[in-house]
């Protein structure tokens, strides 16, 4: 069945207003996007929506109790809360280096969770 729907592209801060014409989950046409990423976004939204996920993990021996972490690639949207439950179990030890893998192959999705920054060990 052919249908049109409105979407806001979230690939970049421009946030183009898209009008997506689709047949089921197949995108026939997008209007309103200023670059071709708009089409990629619309296709993904209909079949496999994903989001970057950023959260924190407990860290021992650092100047802060938490270290920020994120998914190195966009993560399947329906599994975000499962991911958060998994990540909230973790506790790591300082020092931590930026991009260090904190959780490998999260939930078997083939996406690593990595540290967003260095966190040196607290000098005592």
């Amino acid at each position: 069945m052919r249908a049109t729907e409105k979407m806001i592209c979230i690939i970049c801060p421009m946030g183009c207003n898209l009008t997506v014409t689709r047949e089921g989950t197949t995108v026939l046409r997008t209007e309103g996007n200023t670059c071709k990423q708009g089409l990629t976004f619309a296709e993904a939204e209909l079949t496999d929506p994903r989001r970057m996920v950023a959260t924190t993990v407990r860290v021992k021996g650092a100047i802060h109790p938490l270290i920020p972490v994120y998914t190195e690639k966009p993560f399947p949207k329906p599994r975000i809360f499962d991911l958060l439950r998994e990540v909230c179990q973790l506790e790591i030890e300082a020092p931590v280096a930026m991009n260090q893998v904190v959780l490998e192959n999260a939930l078997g999705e083939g996406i690593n969770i990595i540290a967003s920054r260095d966190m040196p060990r607290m000098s005592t």
Partner: protein
Amino acid sequence: MAKQLKSQYDVIVVGAGPGGLAAAISAKKNGADDVLMIDRDLELGGILLQCIHNGFGVDTFKEDLPGPSYAQRFIKEAQGVGIDYLLDSMVLDVTSGRKVFVTGTRGGFKELQARAIVIAMGCRERTRAQIGIPGPRPAGVYTAGLAQRWVNVEGYMPGKRFVILGSGDIGMIMARRLTFEGAKVERVLEVMPYLTGLSRNYVQCLMDFDIPLQLRHTVKRIIGKDRVKAVEAVQVDDRWRPVPGTGEMIPCDTLLLSVGLIPENELSQKAGVILDPMTNGPFVDDGFATNIPGVFAAGNVVHVYDLVDWVTKTGLTAGRRAAMFAQGHCNENPVFVPTAAGENIRYVVPHRIDPETLTQDTIMLQMRVTQPMEEAVLVRVTDGDTLIAKKRERYVRPGEMVSLKLRERDYDSVRHAKELRVSVAPL
């Protein structure tokens, strides 16, 4: 860290967030030998360190980075090029003679002399006092940025059930963040008839998690004695007056305020820097020089940007110009052309430009519109009847800054202009 603090520097940068970091790096690379950054926090990086969400650096690095990663790239670079910095230290005063008075627990009180200063203190959140919400004053009313610091850096959850006032980016991002941490965000209220943050944040922070947004709504009253128990939300008319009969009690234990940011210019004013009442930041030229010779401004201290990439860009410009000033390489007698806000433009930054800049560089004019226009518009720069530059935009919104680049080809017309008036009108 500054091992041995000098008493004199070519460039002193006040604030080590993205604006200050970019300014310091750029000053150093443009010939300033002794550059010092001063920050009150224990680490370099500023507010980016608490902005753990992605979306930074799409323009600067062509990558989608979280705030701390974006900051770290500049921190490493600053350390790599040999910039001194003083942390856990508060600048108490800056004078028009470019003296900087600073104090800290380790270094004590110091008087420093700079050839040029870059002010990069960023901005502050508006608080409950500034928007005047009536009612008692229980615990549980916080600014969104404060909550962000608690949740992302210090590891405290400020509540369980939230209402967020203001649809700015920080408010929406906190709505998602609190949801991630197991809290319930009941509602986001926005007094304006439109979203004040970026649309992408509406999608990925509110829509994705079914958090309702109510436009033309505000908090009429806070209920609770020791702790917030509920807020009374109300619809408002065009003049922000409550519409009778529209009140609704929303039970919650915390109200977060995301009701705007104000450039932080207490120090600038001590140095005699004159502020524009429209932006709450200094009047600046295209090199981000203020009215005080040798005092430059970088980042959100000038006006509040939507994107850190812009903060970085202006920091690079301010730092380069500060280095030039410190070395005595500035256009001595510039003949400035003022910019002006025309139809549907709230303000234009910079406030005046030196046309000679266009012989070597482009100049970005940045504007905020007064009213949203959800149709194709033409942004025009005119001097009387003369069209100097124009740009098409698919729409304009107050929450999204409009930029227009002046180029070398515009040099002649800019040089002969009395003013550069920017206006926006439907195509």
